[in-house]
Every structure is written in C-alpha cells, then in structure tokens.
C-alpha cells in the first residue's frame, strides 16, 4: 500500500467515528432544544493533530453530510445550521495554525473552534431562520455552554493524544 492509501484509510476510519458520534448526539435528550456537547469535534481536533488541516476539513464536512443523510435532516434548516457551524469552526482552526505552539495548547484550539461554531450557527439563524434580534437573548447562554463543553472536549483530546495511548 502506498502512503496515500494508508492516509485515505485512516481518514475514512475517523470519518466513521465522527459520523457515529454526531448521529448519536442527535438522539441525546437535552433540557433545552439545540444544546449539544459537540463530541464529534473531539474527532475533528484529533484528526488535525494526528494528520493535518486538510484531513480535518475532509472529516468535518463528510461527517456533516453523511450524518444528516442518516438522521434524515439533509437540506433542512438543521443541516444548514450544522454546516455553517462546521465551516466557521474550520476557518477558526485554520487561523489557529498560525498561533505559537509554545504558548497555545489544544485548549485554545478547542475554545476558538467552539466560538467559531456558535458564531457560524447564530449568523445563519439570524439571517435565514429567525430574522429577529431576539435570538441574541440566547447568545450568552450558548456561549457559556460552548466554553464548558469545549474545555471538556479538549481535555479528552489531550488524553487521546498523550504518548501513553
């Protein structure tokens, strides 16, 4: 097998895990509609650290498309919210590459990705789905939860990536 075949093999394996996590998360009971821990982001961040940015883009976008087909939300508002969140969080991940690795660890990466995710989702919701400024009332709550969940996710990634595993 060539190096490229191995790479595609690995990426598809991570895609599968991300799709399972994303789909499972959809059926998770939540107290407020729309609040999810974002456990699929663990895999995105892990892929980025293990391989490179390009692989993370593949895994993230394939996850959004395939899991929406599985759940049955393809080309519905839910799908577009999910897609915009994924794209903006990838843009933030791309910008994170330029940060010094001496001072910034994966906690920063995870927090900024979470922030990007929430900003992308709110932009789409504000423009297309609920065109009213009232949606910003939910912003502080979502931001706080993003912060907590992204720290937990980063902690899990740090355990996955550690040399003992």
């Amino acid at each position: 097998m060539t190096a490229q075949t191995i790479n595609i093999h690995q990426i598809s394996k991570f895609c599968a895990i991300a799709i399972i996590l994303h789909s499972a998360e959809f059926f998770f009971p939540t107290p407020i509609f729309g609040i999810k821990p974002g456990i699929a982001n663990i895999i995105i961040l892990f892929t980025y650290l293990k391989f490179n940015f390009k692989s993370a883009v593949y895994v993230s976008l394939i996850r959004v498309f395939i899991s929406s087909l599985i759940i049955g939300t393809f080309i519905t508002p839910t799908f577009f919210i999910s897609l915009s969140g994924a794209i903006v969080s990838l843009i933030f991940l791309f910008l994170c590459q330029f940060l010094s690795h001496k001072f910034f660890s994966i906690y920063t990466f995870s927090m900024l990705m979470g922030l990007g995710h929430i900003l992308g989702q709110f932009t789409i919701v504000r423009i297309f789905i609920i065109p009213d400024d009232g949606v910003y009332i939910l912003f502080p709550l979502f931001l706080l939860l993003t912060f907590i969940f992204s720290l937990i996710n980063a902690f899990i990634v740090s355990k996955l990536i550690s040399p003992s595993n």
Partner: protein
Amino acid sequence: MKLFGYSMREILLLKLFKLGDFLIFFIFISIVIISLNFYFQLPKGDYLEISHGNETKQYTLMQNKTLIFDEIEVEINMGKAKIKKSNCSNQYCVMQGWISKINHSAVCIPNLFKMSIKSKTLSYDSTNY
C-alpha cells in the same frame, strides 16, 4: 482522588494549561460577562404602544392602571406592563409576565394584540448588542 490520571490538585492548579490558554480563557469569560451585562443593563422605556386589530395607541408607563380591551386586560404598574387576562386557549401571553425594557414586547396572536415598550429618545434595538 484521580481523574484521567491527573490528581485533583493538578487540575485545580491548571497545570494542564499553557500561558496563552489563560489569555483565551479570560477573553472568552469576559465576552460572556459583557454580553450578559448588556442584556441586564438595558435602559427602560418611556411609553407603551398597544396595537389591537387595526388601531395603535400609546400610553405612558408612569402610572398604575388597568386597561381593558375586548378580550384582554393589561396592567401597567410604574414602568412595567403585563397582560393580566386573556381568553385565548394557550395563555402564552399571560405567562410572559412583566415587560419593562426598550423594544420588549408581548403578543397575543389569537386576539391580534401586540404591546411593546418604546422610547422617545433611544430607538436602537434592545437585544442588538
């Protein structure tokens, strides 16, 4: 007690973090606090605008009064207002409770009723921070 191989002391002292992470951490926390602050420090409105059917009327907020429209009872109490009674089935308008800040509004869709708080000087949107 150990969590994922780290002792509680290590986690509390944040040995897992690097210096830049603290920076992002505090920026994130301050964004949350600022956005919460903006929401709770909105200015109060001057008058109440009620539109019922095709009519729109204005009432001052600095009074204690109960207004009665056909099916709806509105209570104004020194700067705040609420829908007290309504004949609609879901009673969402009654559950909304007091409103007091600029551009906040209460609606009762079955009765085509809307009331919102306005200001003479400030016209920006209350929730747009």
